């Protein structure tokens, strides 16, 4: 168990700055998610922590030791690749045993540990098979077992669930989370899927264009975004962002509801006129697309009503009185995108 610290790390590939100055300090034993769109630099950052890439600038520390220029095998990290990278010519047993063998451990010790790791993931019955005989989900567990068997200081995972089909992903997510809590090893997890991030992370680091936008608990990044990128990235559909002069304010679609719902609500609400252009029934949710009034330049916004609110029929073309609880409205500076103080409009 060790703390991972990243100080002012940059990585340049010719002209491109894949990672543009990131500072990060992990909490011991936490499940830290690096979240961001494709190409934002999160995988590059992970690889630098692993030792597979050398930073162009900055330092990396693991457990207090500077490891910036050390090769992977000197860092005590374990990594699960997106493709799992199982050694195709070895049996599952040998796959899991490989790290221990590379460290020169005695045979008995290796046998014991491999069985221990395999049992953690219920793959003991596969030990004699080869990777190509296993399904995607099974291979993933082998990759995890191989990572675990060395009892590393840090667990690094690079989009390990993206190769699984949707159904498997949900159960795998839960298993992974429980497993991590049980072994309590600092874990850094890279994904572009915000649902995974929100569901599994103790903290989420939102990264875009090589820069760290915000780091915080799922609640913090979701309900208290620090800039418009985070606000727009998290949430599906994303936060509605409306420009007023040189400022921007935003509110989440699920807060944007017919005003009557908020009757009797303790919080103050801000009303909006809302002209509906389209309604999408998605089963559990109803997405309502429409425009705000002239005051906001007929800005296009989305409302997200639970289908269970059956007493609020919505018709295309009609205008309704909608509202947002005032504390849920966030304010940003238009130029920098950063959060600003509350202003009235």
């Amino acid at each position, binding site marked *: 168990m060790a703390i991972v610290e990243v100080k002012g790390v940059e990585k340049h590939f010719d002209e491109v700055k894949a990672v543009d100055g990131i500072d990060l300090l992990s909490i011991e034993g936490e499940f830290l998610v690096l979240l961001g769109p494709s190409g934002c630099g999160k995988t590059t950052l992970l690889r630098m922590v692993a030792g597979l890439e050398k930073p162009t600038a900055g330092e990396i520390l693991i457990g207090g030791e500077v490891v910036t220029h050390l*090769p992977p095998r000197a860092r005590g990290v374990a*990594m699960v690749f997106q*493709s799992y*990278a199982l*050694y195709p010519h070895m049996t599952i047993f040998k796959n899991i045993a490989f790290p221990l063998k590379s*460290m020169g451990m005695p045979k008995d010790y290796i046998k014991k540990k491999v069985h221990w790791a395999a049992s953690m993931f219920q793959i003991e019955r596969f030990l004699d098979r080869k990777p190509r005989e296993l399904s995607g989900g099974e291979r993933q567990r082998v990759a995890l077992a191989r990572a675990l068997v060395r009892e590393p200081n840090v667990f690094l995972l690079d989009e390990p669930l993206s190769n699984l089909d949707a159904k498997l992903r949900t159960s795998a997510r839960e298993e992974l989370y429980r497993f991590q809590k049980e072994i309590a090893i600092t874990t850094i997890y890279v994904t572009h899927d915000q649902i995974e991030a929100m569901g599994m992370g103790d903290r989420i680091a939102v990264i875009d264009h090589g820069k760290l936008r915000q780091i915080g608990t799922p609640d913090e990044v979701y309900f208290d975004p620090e800039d418009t990128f985070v606000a727009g990235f998290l949430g599906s559909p994303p936060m509605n962002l409306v420009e007023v002069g040189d400022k921007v304010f935003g509110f989440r679609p699920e807060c944007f509801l017919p005003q009557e719902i908020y009757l009797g609500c303790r919080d103050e609400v801000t009303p909006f006129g809302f002209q509906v252009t389209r309604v999408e029934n998605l089963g559990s949710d109803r997405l309502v697309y429409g425009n705000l009034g002239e005051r906001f330049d007929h800005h296009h916004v989305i409302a997200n009503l639970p289908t269970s609110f059956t007493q609020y029929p919505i018709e295309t073309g009609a205008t309704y009185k909608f509202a947002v609880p005032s504390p849920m409205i966030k304010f940003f500076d238009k130029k920098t995108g950063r959060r600003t103080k509350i202003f009235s409009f």
Partner: protein
Amino acid sequence: MRNPLARLKIIAKKLAYFGTLGVFTLFASLPFIWMLITTFKQNPDLYNTANNPYIFNMAPTLTHLRELFMQTLFLRWMLNTLLVGVLVVIITLILVIPAAYSLVRLSGRLGERLGIGIFLTYLVAPTILFIPMARVVANLGLQDSLWSLVVVFPSFTVPFGIWLLMGFFKSIPRDLEEAAMIDGNSRLGAFIRMVLPISTPGILTIVIFTFTLVVQEFIYTLTFITSAKSYTVSVGVPTFLVHGDVYNWGAMMGGCLIASLPVAILYNFFLDRFIGGLTLGAVKG
């Protein structure tokens, strides 16, 4: 209700298809079929121009084969070829395997360019170099010795092998090596413990093709070797023909056939890999 015209069309198409294929096959294999027949034909039958050359007019015989093995140096030549082949394969592997890996994984764009440069070397080799090489070999005191071949042959098997193995190494996912490094190996360790075991098919291909290149080689052997007992099969058989006064066709055809078959068989099984390596290396740079 079957349309008889359509049926006819299908038959005609099939006939054309297999007919054309047959012509090609005949064209390709005729000399070898020829060798097969001639090896077992009795001389009077062979040299009688009135006889149909395509059939056995007299009973087939094993005399020629006996002559081949007892009265010529054929067996000695086969042995020489085998010996040179094995040694050259070993030398080639030692030079090629690390070099190909270095070019693919460790040298970036410079490596790509160097790889192409090396391929171009293969084009240059024997034809242009055999003249000065004759002198070099003489200066080294290796003329008329099989060792001259062992020393010189890698000059074309190595560029070829590097190019072929590069294509093969490129197809190994980087993930696997990175996983091996994270699991506690250095780059070199990952290479030895992970890449090499996986590359056995590729290395086997290099072995086969290096060996066939050695068996096929003609011009260096012709230039460096002058005494009959040191010939390889590729030069021995035709030279025996050229210098000999009596053209013993039967025995010679037997020799050609026997020396061609093993190489041909091996080659066939590995050709698909070879083409894969060829096209990967050439097209993807």
